[in-house]
Each structure stands twice: as structure tokens, then as C-alpha cells.
């Protein structure tokens, strides 16, 4: 039985930065190209029962010209929440999809695509109008972008 | 085949009084401190507009008090918060943030109708007319 320490050291091995989200959730910053690899490694080492992806939070950092993606992972059975953070350019927000290895990513990826315009490469279910109303879709606007005018 | 367990309960309900209330002929009983309609006591209101700024539903609009009413000196701008109950979510944020505790909270909930759509009638009764 592998403990929570192993999971942290796995995440640590990929990270290029550390941090904390209140209240004391450990934060690992990784390269965008590595996000999929982290999840592959988690699944390979700990199986599907070892964690679940709670949510994907996309934030538009307009002043920095990039979009921040946070993957909130709950490690089981300890039920500890850790954060995997990555930054992608605002002009070309593309990242590898997780949906084929982790079906639970579907809801988060579809929502982030529809509201923030992040393209998850390899996710066949992405579509506009998943949440956003039709008039916004026709204008091609992403409502959670800071300059969307919504 | 087991006998349905609910049979006794159903028979009991057949002979007992109905559980529903014949509203509006019979009023629904509510608590004394139920969050019903609230309105400003214009004797205390200073027209500071804080409630209108804090209202999460934008239901409060600062409105001039009609000239036929005597307004206390503490309200130099002669304005009062007019609550649109159609928009109001009855969170009582206005009641709690008021610096002069001017709001009167009631447990009235029957606001359907034309005259009770806003707090105008409630609030203006707290003032005296000029010359009366």
C-alpha cells in the first residue's frame, strides 16, 4: 500500500514551482506539456481508485497575457486536496486533453472550453453552447474572459 | 407477496383532517420573526443610500419623498429607499447594514396585489403629512 507521501513525491518530481492555496492545499506548478504525463503517472502508479479529479478552474489573467489552469485533485483514501497549476498563452490556449485516460475530466474540460476558450487537444466532445447562450456563441465570445464585455 | 406497509397509514389519512391549508381563506402560520416584507421607518432614515448600494438584487431605489410630507432634518436630501418587492429576495441585508436601524421588519408574506408591490405605502405611513 502506497501512502500519501508517494503521491506527493510523484507530483513533486514534475513540478517547477510550489505554493499553497488557502487553507493549506499544496500547490504544484507544472509545465503545460506535462499535465497529461502527471495524470498518466498517477493512474499507472495508484490506479483509478487512488485519486479523483475534482475540478478544473480556468482563470483569465489578462494583464499577464496568459490563462491559468488549476487541476484540483483529491487524493484517496486520505482525501487530501492538491492543486496542479499550469499556465498557457492567452492567444493560443491549447493543452492536451485528459478525457481519454480520465473520463471524469469531461465536465471540467467542456465547461472551460465553452466559457474560457481553452482548447483541450484530443477531446472530441468539446463544443460551444455547452453552457453559453446562443447569442454569445454566434459572436464567438467567451464569457469568462475579462474583455468579453459580458 | 408482502402486504403493502403503507396501508394502515393510508387508511388513517382517509379519516383524518386534510394536511393542506386553504390559502388565502386560511393564513399559513409563520413565525413571528419570519423574514417578510421590510420597509424603512422614515422617521429614522437619513437617506444615506447604503442599503441601495448593498442590495444584492438591486431592488432598492432611492426616491424623493413627496413634498406633502414632513421630513426630519436628519434627511436633508429628502430621499428614501423604495423597495420593489417583485425584485427583492428578502435576504434582509438592508435591515442589517442600516447605520440608523431604520428598517422595520415584519412577518407579512401576502404581497400579491397592486398596492403592495413596493414599500411606498408602508414607508410613507411612518411620516406625517404637512399640516396634519
Amino acid at each position, binding site marked *: 500500500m502506497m501512502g500519501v507521501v508517494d503521491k506527493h513525491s510523484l507530483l513533486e518530481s514534475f513540478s517547477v514551482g510550489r505554493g499553497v*492555496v*488557502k*487553507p493549506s492545499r499544496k500547490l504544484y506548478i507544472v509545465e503545460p506539456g506535462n499535465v497529461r504525463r502527471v495524470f498518466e503517472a498517477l493512474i499507472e502508479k495508484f*490506479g*483509478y*481508485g*487512488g*485519486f*479523483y*479529479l*475534482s*475540478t478544473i*478552474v480556468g*482563470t483569465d489573467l489578462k494583464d499577464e497575457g496568459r490563462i491559468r489552469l*488549476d487541476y*484540483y485533485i*483529491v487524493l*484517496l483514501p*486520505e*482525501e*487530501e*486536496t492538491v*492543486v496542479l497549476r499550469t499556465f498557457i498563452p492567452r492567444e493560443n490556449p491549447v493543452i492536451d486533453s485528459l478525457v481519454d485516460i*480520465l*473520463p*471524469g*475530466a*469531461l*465536465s471540467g474540460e*467542456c*465547461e472551460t472550453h465553452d466559457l474560457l476558450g481553452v482548447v483541450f487537444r484530443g477531446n472530441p466532445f468539446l463544443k460551444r*453552447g455547452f*453552457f*453559453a*447562450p446562443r447569442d454569445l456563441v454566434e459572436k464567438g465570445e467567451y*464569457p*469568462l474572459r475579462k474583455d468579453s464585455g*459580458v | *407477496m*408482502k402486504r*403493502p*406497509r*403503507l396501508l394502515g397509514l393510508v387508511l388513517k389519512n382517509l379519516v383524518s383532517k386534510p*394536511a393542506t391549508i386553504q390559502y388565502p381563506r386560511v393564513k399559513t402560520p409563520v*413565525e413571528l*420573526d*419570519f*423574514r417578510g416584507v421590510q420597509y424603512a421607518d422614515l422617521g429614522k432614515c437619513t437617506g444615506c443610500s447604503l442599503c441601495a448600494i*448593498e*442590495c*444584492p*438584487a438591486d431592488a432598492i431605489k432611492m426616491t424623493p419623498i413627496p413634498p406633502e410630507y414632513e421630513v426630519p432634518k436628519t434627511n436633508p436630501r429628502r430621499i428614501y429607499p423604495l423597495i420593489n418587492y417583485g425584485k427583492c*429576495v*428578502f*435576504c*434582509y*441585508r438592508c435591515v*442589517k*447594514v442600516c*447605520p440608523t436601524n431604520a428598517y422595520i421588519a415584519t412577518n407579512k408574506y401576502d404581497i400579491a396585489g397592486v398596492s403592495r408591490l413596493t414599500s411606498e405605502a408602508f414607508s410613507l405611513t411612518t411620516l406625517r403629512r404637512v399640516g396634519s
Partner: protein
Amino acid sequence: MGVTKIVEISVVTAEIPVGPQHPALHEPLLLKVYAEGEEVVKVEVNTGYNHRGIERLCERNTFYRDIFIVGRVCGICNAVHTNCYVRALEQLLDLHPNRRAQYLRVLAMELERVHSHMLINAVMAEIVGFETLFMQIMLDREKVMKAKEILTGSRVMADYVMVGGVRRDIDEEKRQRIRELLLKLGPRIEYYRKVFEEDETIVKRLVGVGRISYGEATSHSLVGPVARGSGVKIDSRVSDKYDAYGEIPFNLVTRSEGDSWARMMVRWDEALESIEMSIYILEHLPSDGDPVPDERRLPRRFPPGEAYTRVEAQRGELTYYVMSDGKGQNPYRVKIRTPSFNNIINSAFMYIGHSLADVPVILASLDPCISCMERVTVIDLEKNTRYRLDLKQLAGGKP
């Protein structure tokens, strides 16, 4: 006359829209069910009928106005939404409410859990065609609604939690009245639990329907009673120990069956636990000061920072992410992830292989529900033509 047309069901894949309107429940959602005969072969979940843009709305309003806006995300679980958001604000401000306030918050949330679990169990009874049971459960649910009214001042919209505490205290008389209501309600819930356990109608419709394994529940990010029905031990109340949950004794309910019946039984057991917790709170309510903060004196400025809070809502783990940039009065980003968001969108796999009649049962066991089919589009896969039949014609057999 003779037969002029034959519809061979076996070569036809019928596309059946389940939703988006249903008179009984609140969430407009469309399940596009593809069925071969009676067997479901594929389900697509269509959303977007009621997206109100709350996250964007929160960015455009002040931190304090947002407290009431997030309470309106969902009527049934408004206290947990507010609690989760307010705790995120308290993390940003580094503020800690006193113990009495924490106990009262837990009381409001547990009363809410009882009425929510009773509601979905009643709806499940209605869906399987057991309307008497539906009426009975709803009648007894009034007791807990009344308790909530005594505590918070409103039957449904609590608006009870405020930064630094709660918005009204309870006195001795209210404490006794809530306690009496709960003592009356407890045996009723035990009785309904027994009905769900033993009644033929319910057992036949629910047992073995929509079974999910432990691995499927975690890989699809299913949360709450859905995951706990499959033996996954997740409960934010146990792991995060927020508010007073670290001090109040309760058991984490799980079952191993993983089917719709197990999920409903988890809900009944949790409702019983909640009643015991509520009575414990009422009997051990600490009095370490005034739990009601003066809303006029709360801090106006929020330091820059980010907070991620979780609560165990009735439907599962609810999370709020709040980011403040330290400038101005509005949050920079608020991200809400409701439990149903995961449970509904990611659960399309659960329906496959079951019959059409089981679709509403599985959906209700996830704790939303939507409409029965209103019209069918028949797709002839061989000729690739498409024509529409309404329900009457289909029932009459003459298109």
C-alpha cells in the same frame, strides 16, 4: 385495407429526448437517449438550458453582495453554498467565527441535508409510480422545513451564514421547538427507510439498476452519495473538518452495492445521522459569545490571495475557489463546482444496457431528474432517412 407499413423496431435506433422540461423537478437538462428496442445503447447529456452565468455575475459584484448571489445558485442547498463561499472569504480575511456560530452553521446545513434527502427519496418514490409514498414523505418533510424556518427565518432560502458568524441566534424556546420537531421526525424517517428496504415495488425497480463500481466512481469523478453508494469513502465533513464537524460525532455512511437502491439507502441513513447530529448540537450548543457579527463593522477590504474551500453538500462535494487581487471590492475570480455538475455530465455511461424505463430511475438516483419523453425521432440507420412521430402515433402504431 391490409397492412401498409411495418415499423421494425429491431433495425431502428430511436433517439429519444428525455428532457429538458419536467414538471416534477428543477433542473432543465436534456438526455439524448439512443435506444435499440427497449435497450439503451448510448446517452448524450445536453446542458446549457439554464446557465445563468453566476461566476461572471460574482466577478461583477462586491464580495458581500456575492454572499446572497451564491445562495441563489440552488434553492435546495443554499446554506451549504453560502457556507462554502463565506468560509473562502474568511480564509482570505483570516477570520474565525466563534464556536457557537460554527455549531449553528452546522445545524442549518444538517437540517438542509435532511429535507433535501427526503425530497429526492420522495421524488424517487413518485418516479417508480408510488405516489402515496411521495405524498407521505413530503408531508413529514414539512416538519424539517418548519425547523428551518424557526432557525433561519425562512423555509427555504436560509441566508443564514455571514462572514464571521451567522445572522441570527436561537434562544431557549426555539431550541426546544426545533428539538421537539426533530424528535418527532426521527421515527418517521426510520419508518420510510424500512419501506424503502422492504417494499416490493421499490426493491424491484431499484435493486441492480445503474450499478457502478468503485473504480468507475473515482475515474468519472462522481461524488457524494453516488460515490458512497459504491463504497468510496469520501466525505468533506470527515476530511476537512470544517466548522464544528470536528467536534460533533457522526458516522460516514457507505454501502457496497453500488446500485440505485444503495444510493437511496445511503441518503436515508445520512438523514438519520443528520437528525442525531442536529439533536446533539441543540443539546451541546456552546455559549462562548455572540455568534451574530455586526454586518456594519465587517472588513471592507480583502487582501490579495486565493482560497479553495469544500463542503459536503447533500449531493456531494461542493467546491468554491475565490481569488482576490487586492484591488477594489470585487473578487477577481469565483469558481463554483457543484456536485451535480460532475454527477450528471460524467454519468452517461451508467445508462447503457438498461431499459428505457430505468433511465428516470438512474437519473433520479443521482439526485436530479428530468422529463419523460415527449416525442421521438426515428432514424432509419439503413436508409439514413429521418422522420418524426409523436407519442400518440407511436402508441397507436400507425405513423
